């Protein structure tokens, strides 16, 4: 048997195009070249198209008068307002519906998620039916249903349906009493702030005492009592009062009170109901992800049911729940752009719709809208990364 010298000292002879490193460079060069070429091509076409349509570009339009109506706005709005004000109004309307929607959807979603895991057959079946029905129907369809088939089908103003607490519902929306706090009410705000501070101090003290002596203190009940008692005392002592401005039916429409337009109500209802189904599934998944051994270990340590849930199961479940939960919140915020389809004047409707049509600055308007959503998304993922780093399992 003869052996051949394979020349171990010399580098293997391969063609340069078979070297993975050089190949990598070539691939990347091709991708970069194609991409740059593509962008260049698009820019050139766009410039030519814009020139052919006699359109100008730039952000100068932001300081022009908008001249359209926004019926629901948190900022003072008139037809004389500028486009940049319309932009802000749109963002605020989006944030408003998203904020309230997130709170309501979280409450409903957690309730449903826990109900689905209930050992009670009827409760868990009801929750399952809700989740499976709502999750599999497009949100837009649900919004149309709530808006066109339910809220817009309400009786006319004359025949408004009266609800408890002086609220009314009709075609033009829901009218509820508006609370008007008087000047003395400022002290109550201070009282609330003091109570919150006291509860935080109580928690810290109770935790220190627990660690030092092992004695437990009913923080939750006492804290709740503080939160109720201190503001109430301040409210009574300062002699503040809250008047309610009631909605009153006049000749053609309701006057006074807080008037919730049907677009807002339908969007909020749809977003809440839809997102709650997804949150419920997230919660169920999170709780089921906690190893059963953890429950058994807690039981064998002698923890009561209450403590077992509070100290062992929920903290571990939250680690699984929170990341998908935040992305559900983000989804809700993005889905609020569907409000445009039922006439709620949120960011996309105001800026991607009306403003774009009036100014013809398609690229600028769309870019600004996208930038806002991109900011929301980046902020959310930054928050999520921070949370993940905080709750990460530290092994060894």
């Amino acid at each position, binding site marked *: 048997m003869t052996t051949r010298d394979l020349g171990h000292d010399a580098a293997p002879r391969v063609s340069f195009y078979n070297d993975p490193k050089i190949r990598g460079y070539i691939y990347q060069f091709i991708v970069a070249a194609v991409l740059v070429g593509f962008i260049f091509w698009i820019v050139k076409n766009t410039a030519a*198209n814009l020139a052919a349509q006699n359109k100008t570009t730039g952000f100068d339009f932001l300081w022009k008068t908008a001249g359209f109506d926004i019926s629901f706005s948190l900022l003072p709005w008139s037809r004389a307002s500028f486009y940049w004000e319309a932009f802000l109004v749109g963002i605020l309307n989006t944030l408003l519906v998203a904020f309230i929607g997130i709170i309501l959807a979280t409450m409903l979603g957690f309730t449903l998620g826990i109900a689905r895991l209930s*050992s*009670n057959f*009827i409760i868990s079946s009801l929750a399952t039916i809700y989740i499976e029905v709502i999750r*599999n129907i497009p949100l837009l369809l649900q919004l149309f249903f709530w808006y066109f088939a339910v809220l817009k089908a309400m009786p006319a103003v004359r025949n408004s349906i009266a609800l408890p607490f002086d609220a009314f519902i009709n075609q033009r929306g829901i009218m509820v009493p508006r609370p008007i706090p008087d000047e003395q009410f400022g002290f109550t705000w201070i009282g609330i702030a003091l109570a919150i501070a006291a509860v935080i101090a109580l928690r810290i003290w109770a935790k220190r005492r627990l660690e030092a002596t092992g004695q437990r203190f009913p923080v939750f009940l006492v804290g709740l009592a503080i939160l109720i008692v201190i503001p109430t005392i301040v409210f009574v002592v300062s002699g503040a009062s809250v008047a309610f401005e009631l909605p009153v039916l006049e000749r053609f429409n309701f006057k006074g009170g807080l008037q919730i337009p049907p677009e807002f109500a339908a969007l909020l209802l749809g977003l809440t109901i839809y997102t709650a189904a997804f949150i419920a599934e997230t919660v169920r998944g999170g709780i089921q992800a906690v190893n059963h051994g953890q429950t058994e270990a807690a039981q064998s340590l002698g923890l009561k049911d209450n403590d077992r849930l509070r100290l062992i199961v929920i903290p571990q479940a939250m680690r699984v729940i929170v990341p998908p939960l935040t992305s559900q919140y983000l989804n809700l915020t993005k889905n609020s752009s569907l409000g445009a389809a039922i006439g709620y004047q949120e960011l*996309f409707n105001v800026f991607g719709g009306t403003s774009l049509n009036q100014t013809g600055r398609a*690229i600028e308007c769309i870019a600004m*809208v996208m930038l806002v959503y991109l900011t929301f*998304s980046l902020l959310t993922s930054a928050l999520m990364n921070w949370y993940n780093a905080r709750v990460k399992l530290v092994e060894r």
Partner: protein
Amino acid sequence: MTDIGFVRSDLVEARPAPVRTTGAIAWAQKNLFSTPLDTVLTILGLLFLAWIVPPLYGFFFGNAVGPNGTVEQCRMENAGACWAYISSEMEFFIYGFYDIPEQWRPNIVFALGALLLVPLLIPKAPFKKTNAVLFLAVYPIVSYFLLAGGVFGLREIPTEKWGGLLVTLILSVIGITLSFPLGVILALGRQSSMPIIKTVCVGFIELIRAVPLITILFMASIMLPLFMPQGMTVDKFLRAIVGVTLFTSAYVAEVVRGGLQAIPRGQYEAASALGLGYWKRMWFIILPQALKHVIPGIVNNFIALFKDTSLVYIVGMKDLLEAVKTKNDTALEWQSGNTATTGYIFAAMVFWVFCFGMSRYSIYMERRLNTGYKR
């Protein structure tokens, strides 16, 4: 040894055997009345059912106007769902403005699709490869020429006339078949060690995922014509497909990335050690394992895509939902208190059947492929 306070020396009395562990009463005791709180919940649940079921039954069946009813019946006091409206407008809900004498063409497309899709979904059916090629490559081309016409003596029917369920299904099928491979490629690109490719993929995925679909579709409908050379127009249908596909592929990419990250490094190294190149390594070793992990996530994205097709009204297309809404708003001869509600409920039922079917199928597939991880 005297400080032990209490030591039991005799056995505890055996407890009596449970009376019943099987049967309806035992089941009810365990699942409905195990604790006082449970009993309260059961009663509340039953009260809720008693409150909601009779009106729902009345609306859907009891007081509903059947498919052969008239609009006068629908307009009566206390009338329930107006199914007569649905049955009389069914043609529009399924085909949109597609010319009535030519409707055999979409019918053939539906039948052909079902014929090719069903054996593809049944794991035991033979000829998987041929079937897949037929469904993914031949079927779209045949369908396109059949629907659009203009060849073989078929009358040309522009895409503006397509509508209803036809559009919803075409968009979903094309969207799903295109976004899946695109998503896998993006996920591989994101995992790549080449910085430029990685940056491009990450940027694309994150940008798309950050913005709502409505803005992407809007961009496709307004910006795409701007991006094209002068005089070149892009069909509305194509714009919608581009928008929906790009959107879904970014989400699929993230799901697939999760699967890729779940594969142990040893698998990559073993494949390299066998001398497999990048594509072979991915195709034969990594992707089959990774994709198996993430079937539920991918199917969830497909369900989302199916639901999202309802947004194409942005680019001016009449999908099922938009067709129903148009008829609700314009069919004056069917105007009644419950017409709009019935229309939306019908659309919801159609969407629900498809989405629920997909999710059940994914659960079935997941169980079937769950080899080696469950004992």
